[in-house]
């Protein structure tokens, strides 16, 4: 590998993977220096989808920034909602009723499943398998229908409010979710039989794109990427928030660090999310879904606040600096895919293009979240 880098000369050529390429899922551009099909150097180029969300936050009231949360990581929009409202609630000292907390957890976990299902399908599409995508979308559609009845939208949710949630659930929600959980439990073994145990997929993923635990620490990768490399870090367990401390669930960790490990972590997380949802449904208390004393016009006291939540891709952090007015002084968002992508350059060295695609897909990138 070293020799390849040192001997770069006329023997190599540059290939632009993106910004419009089928497997960069949006507008990521990766500059590849290739020696034949071997990657000598890979450099991700960002910023094609930059929309200044952080700056927008400084110019809007706290409530007006809510819809932006769903536009960053559009696949796990509810986790972003959660991170933002938690940060603002921490700043303004708003108490959230218990029912609202449980509803948040249930919907966030449902959203996590839908995100992982989409990743599963899209990843298989990257690897050339078309059919699993459609099967995953079959399940995901049902999930989106459920979330649509609660939140009113199917993708860019804007459901949480400071002090609670926007709407209480209706009477169909609990049976629909229970039905979905039961269905998903039967579908997961099918996915494992069709995809996970398939020899072609195993050959393509096992040992491909190894990411060591040091690399994870060096680049600050979180979420399934870190857990696939043996770093047991999950914000829900390590820095508990909301009602997660009361929930009984496991954090799947695999130590191999290859694409297969990341794949397995996500598939196991779907199962764990189902567990969390079931517990949430069983323990869902009666009561209001909105704090009665939540102020309409928010003016948090001066201060510096940070809240991290576990989004589908890793730790999403909101740093909120308030100067006592009705707009934030600074809103810094830490998005997981940005850190997860940054290790790609190092990990992809010396790989074949096809393997690099498998690695890139296994990082589960959402480009608008990287660029914000």
């Amino acid at each position, binding site marked *: 590998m070293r020799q390849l880098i040192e001997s770069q000369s006329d023997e190599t*050529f540059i*290939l632009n993977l993106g910004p419009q*390429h*089928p*497997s960069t899922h949006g507008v990521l551009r990766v500059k590849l220096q290739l020696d*034949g*099909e071997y990657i000598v150097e890979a450099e991700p180029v960002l910023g094609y989808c930059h929309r200044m969300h952080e700056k927008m936050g400084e110019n809007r009231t706290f409530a007006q920034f809510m819809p932006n949360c769903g536009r960053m990581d559009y696949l796990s929009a509810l986790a972003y909602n959660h991170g933002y409202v938690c940060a603002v609630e921490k700043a303004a000292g708003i108490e959230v009723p218990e029912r609202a907390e449980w509803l948040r957890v249930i919907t966030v976990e449902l959203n996590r499943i839908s995100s992982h299902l989409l990743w599963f399908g899209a990843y*298989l*599409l*990257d*690897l*050339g*398998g*078309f*059919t699993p995508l*459609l*099967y995953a979308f*079959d399940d995901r559609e049902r999930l989106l229908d459920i979330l649509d009845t609660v939140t009113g939208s199917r993708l860019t949710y804007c459901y949480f409010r400071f002090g609670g949630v926007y709407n209480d659930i209706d009477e169909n929600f609990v049976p629909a979710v229970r039905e979905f959980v039961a269905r998903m439990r039967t579908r997961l073994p099918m996915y494992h039989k*069709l*995809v996970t145990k*398939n020899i*072609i*997929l195993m*050959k*393509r993923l096992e040992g491909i794109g190894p990411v060591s635990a040091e690399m994870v620490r060096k680049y600050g990768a979180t979420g399934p990427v870190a857990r696939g490399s043996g770093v047991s870090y999950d914000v829900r367990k390590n820095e508990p928030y909301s009602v997660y401390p009361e929930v009984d669930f496991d954090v799947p960790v695999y130590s191999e660090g290859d694409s297969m490990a990341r794949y397995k972590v996500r598939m196991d997380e779907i199962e764990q999310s189902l567990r969390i949802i079931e517990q949430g449904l069983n323990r869902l208390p009666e009561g209001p879904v909105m704090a009665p004393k939540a102020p309409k016009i928010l003016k948090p006291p001066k201060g510096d606040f940070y809240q991290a939540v576990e989004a589908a891709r890793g730790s999403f952090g909101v740093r909120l600096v308030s100067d006592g007015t009705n707009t934030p002084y600074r809103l810094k968002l830490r998005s997981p895919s940005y850190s997860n992508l940054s290790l790609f350059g190092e990990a992809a060295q010396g790989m*074949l*293009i*096809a*393997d690099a*695609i498998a690695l890139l897909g296994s990082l589960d990138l959402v480009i608008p979240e990287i660029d914000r």
Partner: protein
Amino acid sequence: MNESINIPWLVGSLVAAIAFVALNASMLVWLERKVAGHIQRRIGPKEVGPFGLFQSFADGLKLMSKQLIVPECSDRILFKVAPLLVMVPAIMSFVVIPFSENLVARNINIGLLVIFAFASVNVLGLLLGGWGSANKYAVISGARAVSQNVAYEIPMLVTVVTMIMVTQTMNLNEIVLQQPDIFHWYIFRLNASPLMPVAFLIFFVCSMAETNRAPFDLGEAESELVAGFHTEYAGMGFGLFFLGEYANVFIGCSLATILFLGGWQSPFGVFPGVWWFLLKVYTLIFVVMWARWTFPRTTLYGLLNLSWKILIPISLFNLVLTGVMLKVF
């Protein structure tokens, strides 16, 4: 054997072959989309004509009416020749395929050899198309196509040599005549070699790889190489690659049928004819499509490993075994 050359018959059959290739490809595209649709629990084409049968004709018309754009820095001659190099050999191979006892354009003694001679030209078309379009993705794809074809030609030809040893002829029609019913199909002739079903499987997998069908469609791996060698082709340039691919699928499956499944012979020994041939071929093509919509794509080294570590040793072993069996019994 008819040794004299009957020019009108030959020209007529060439025209028929071209017509058949076009019709067959449009039907296969329709079938492929229907199979894919139902595997994925959707309907597939349904708007144009009954069950969407005329969809591919509409697509074909659209392709024909489009401009063939030649990229600025491409090699203009190679770029234009490449689709023909894929298409023409595919049509030529149809000349020797026996659809039924008499429905064969030119019944020659080296039919099998002719088909493999033409099949090797196919890869040249892919390489030139990739090279000529002056696109980095296309060049990588062309290189992949060559290494893939070289790797898979070997086990395929070793299997065919085994078959020639067993059948003692290279005349396709005679091979079919040796298999009058299901018990005499070569796939079940375990007395010739106990590995005959495996040989069929090797041949089938190789023909899938030779024709660049998924899961071996590395040449046009769209998630890696955008569209591979036909990235820069528009209109009928792309159309010919497409037609050529489906023609090659048909040839691969018909060869498997002729060598192992008794060609146009009926499984019960009665009513032999072209319908049996088409039925068997289209069943095999269905399996090819079914596999495409089930499996993810292999990688290049996975593909080469399969060829060199599994298919070639087994087919060589089969060759030796068959030789020994022929000598002993």
